[in-house]
């Protein structure tokens, strides 16, 4: 069954916005409603074309009226995020993000539960629900439970959001629910905690740790969301690119210099960066960079039927190209040095 009226939350952010653009360009879909607390930028709004923007806060019961009056049949919940919304030109604190994520999801689900028209719910979730720890298996499948849930942070939000979604799926078993657990998103146009971290000229890491990063290219993320909206099967799916990069390897790939610091020093640097409003270098972020996280994407390939077009390294390289980062150490210098030493040595042979 093709969706006829789709509601997308988080439409002023990159993923929600670009998904709206794609859905609005699809003539099979009658109506696309884009919801967010702040209006999208003029460029995004123009590209959204026939999509209708509804300025609404998910934490407000107003969303229920939007769903019932427009007779929405497919809801794409893409607003949950670890990153503070920058679109409004202000930075919100951690507690606001948490409210947006958790309370927003609760209100949205409450609205969906009362609705008689909603037949499908697609939730953009995250691999963060598996945590990051040295005591867990190296690769997570969809039925693995996190080892320990931290007391705060985005990971806790994500676990709680999925908990509410499971509760909703139990109460409304006539609604098809698709939960997409994304690996860390990266891409030339996406601004995330991770992309800001890698954009630092000298990148602090914790001495003695080197996490495994699995990345998902923004285009793959959008394609998966679009496919899920159009005809995706219900269920929980891990979504991530093939292969991994180690944190130290990724930093060197950018031509940047990893600076391993002892744990407490990293905490101090993280706090400094946080205060300077550069990066939210939260403790959970440090844990993630220390141990990393890899998702098994077998179900995505077989049941969901999508093969990611970008591997982790390709996605990362595309991010590096797109962000036009000037390498601190130019790879050309390394090649030149190699040639120089060799030709010098060649004289002595």
């Amino acid at each position, binding site marked *: 069954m093709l969706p006829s009226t789709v509601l997308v939350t988080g439409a002023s952010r990159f993923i929600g916005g670009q998904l709206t653009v794609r859905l609005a360009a699809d003539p099979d879909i009658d109506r696309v409603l884009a919801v967010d607390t702040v209006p999208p930028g003029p460029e995004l709004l123009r590209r959204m074309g026939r999509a209708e923007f509804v300025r609404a806060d998910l934490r407000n019961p107003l969303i229920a009226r939007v769903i019932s009056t427009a007779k929405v049949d497919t809801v794409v919940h893409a607003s949950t995020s670890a990153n503070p919304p920058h679109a409004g030109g202000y930075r919100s604190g951690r507690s606001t993000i948490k409210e947006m994520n958790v309370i927003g999801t609760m209100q949205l689900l409450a609205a969906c539960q009362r609705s008689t028209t909603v037949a499908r719910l697609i939730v953009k979730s995250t691999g963060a629900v598996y945590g990051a720890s040295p*005591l867990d298996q*190296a690769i997570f499948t969809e039925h693995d439970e996190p080892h320990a849930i931290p007391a705060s942070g985005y990971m806790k939000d994500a676990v709680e959001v999925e908990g509410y979604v499971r509760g909703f799926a139990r109460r409304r078993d006539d609604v098809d629910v698709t939960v997409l657990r994304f690996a860390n998103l990266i891409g030339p146009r996406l601004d995330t905690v991770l992309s800001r971290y890698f954009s630092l000229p000298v990148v602090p890491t914790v001495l003695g740790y080197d996490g495994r990063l699995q990345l998902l290219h923004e285009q793959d993320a959008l394609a998966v969301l679009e496919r899920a909206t159009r005809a995706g099967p219900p269920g929980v799916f891990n979504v991530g690119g093939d292969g*991994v990069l180690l944190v*130290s390897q990724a*930093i*060197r790939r950018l031509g940047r210099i990893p600076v391993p610091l002892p744990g407490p020093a990293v905490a101090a640097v993280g706090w400094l960066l946080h205060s300077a409003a550069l990066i939210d270098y939260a403790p959970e972020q440090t844990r993630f960079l220390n141990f990393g996280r890899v998702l098994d994407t077998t179900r995505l390939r077989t049941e969901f039927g999508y093969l990611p077009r970008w591997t982790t390294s390709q996605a990362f390289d595309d991010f590096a190209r797109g962000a036009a980062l000037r390498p601190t150490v130019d790879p050309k210098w390394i090649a030149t040095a*190699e040639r120089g030493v060799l030709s010098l040595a060649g004289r002595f*042979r």
Partner: protein
Amino acid sequence: MPQARVIPLHRPGEATDSELPAGPSTAVAVGDDQIAPQWYRELAGLLEFARRRCSGDYGVDPFGFDPDLTDHVLLPLLRPLYRTWFRVETIGIHHVPADGGALVVANHSGTLPLDAVMTAIAVRDEHPAGRQLRMLGADLVFRTPLLGSLARKSGQTLACAPDAERLLDSGELVGVWPEGFKGLGKRYRDRYKLQRFGRGGFVAAALRTRTTIIPCSIVGAEEIYPMIGDITPLARLLRTPYFPVTPLFPLLGPLGMVPLPSKWYIEFGEPVRTDGYEPGSADDATLVFNLTDQIRETIQQTLHRLLIQRRNPFLG
């Protein structure tokens, strides 16, 4: 100096860079290579390795295994220990299959897990297929800074059923030391007495993936750090399973950390096939316990035989 760039080294396929001028200069360079002295080729190889490392241009598997680093740095560093110091003799390496998943199960001893490292070198260097042993390590290893990331880079992963089964399913050669710290940290007077083989989780993993189990008996590791005592309060403080006292450690300080040069034998025994059992037999606790005991007994008997043949722990 374009001709300097073309010298094919470890990876002939990769040496052809896009910036390379094609045509006659390549032919000249190849001819050049044949007369290039050994040291020059080694230098070029080293430089190429350094460039790969500096630009992050190497592959890592989802478990964090870095074959480039393992083959070019870790193994060359450890090989002298294997060849000169312990003079390891490998017996029955033909029992290890050339491809496909298999589980090497070995006894554990020696205070520090050097026996695992030596087994990995044995498989890599002595086996005709040069297989990489993917070792299953204790959670303590992965919790420890430096050690944990180094362990992953050298192909280890956490000893847990999902990782073991995933590795076996993807056709890797997996190594497991089921005695764990009970075997590693036992006193010198208990040498070559096998401890309990965990709860048989490794047998269940092999049954579930229908892979062969290869019993492996290691003689020589017990003598490298003869543990005569354990300072429990220090161990508790450092959160380690034990704080060893050997004849030389902590008496001689860092010098006491040099392992004694015992003579080693690593024997790979007759493989135990698991594909003859019905699917679902991994849930048959009796079968799992029996198989565990059978493998433990095989290793214990092989140890006795090797010990009788050995005349002196240091001369062999």
